[in-house]
């Protein structure tokens, strides 16, 4: 996943999908100064990293941003360190208010 995110074109593709996903390869190519082949290659890498999921709709292949891998990273690292103290404070507040 970090390798997939390390490239500026791939980050740009993810930004485009974040703004509006469900786009075709053609739509994505039209917005980037790059060949169809180049965009395909980057999309394949993003898909292999789980950051992009494709879905067929009739004849079209639509690309969606998949936020779950980034969420897993957030939950594993940020959540663990940032939110536990917050919930501990909430528990403390509850206990103090109950008087126990």
């Amino acid at each position, binding site marked *: 996943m970090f390798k997939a995110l390390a490239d500026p074109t791939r980050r740009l593709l993810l930004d485009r999908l974040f703004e*509006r*996903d*469900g786009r075709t390869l053609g739509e994505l190519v039209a917005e980037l100064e790059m060949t169809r082949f180049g965009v395909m290659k980057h999309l394949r890498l993003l898909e292999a990293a*789980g950051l992009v*999921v494709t*879905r067929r*709709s009739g004849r079209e292949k*639509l690309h*969606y941003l*998949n*936020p*779950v891998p*980034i*969420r*897993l990273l*957030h*939950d594993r690292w940020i*959540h663990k360190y940032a939110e536990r103290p917050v919930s501990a404070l909430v528990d403390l507040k509850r206990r103090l208010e109950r008087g126990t």
Partner: protein
Amino acid sequence: MTTTAQGATTTQVYRVYIKATPEAIWDAITKPEWTARYGYTGYVDYDLRPGGAYKVRPTPEFRAGSEARGNPLPDVIIEGEVLEADPPRKLVTTFRMLMDPGLAGEPVTRITHEIVPGANGVCALTLTHELDGAHKLAAIVGGAYEAHGAGGGHAWVLSDLKTLLETGSAFTG
């Protein structure tokens, strides 16, 4: 169509890879003793045949927490209809959130869960939520209101589900 005239996305797709059997993942989605343990922690109630009812009721903790914030909950917070149930591979239901009148008044949406076994005992679970016209619900399940206490939407739920199945306990548990 996946987009509205305004260009807003109306279908969301999420995929998570979980080291568990398709049956375990299916149970974690369709059985209340599992769904009470991760994400928003509701009790699901599925009648797993086409036309069957789908309901989610809040856990006592969820109900008490919501009431304490001045937002009492109805007995059923999500309702829908089972459109397709193919255990342990595919589940399609309609989905309507009843937690507030603004959400309950939006068009009915549709959720598809697909479980595909892969190599090394890892399954891909893909959740597709078709949200045409349901803009408020789309923002909530997309995680846009997380900072306001509305939870992190599907990405958060699936991350928690993976953690529960792989480690035996969830972040929210």
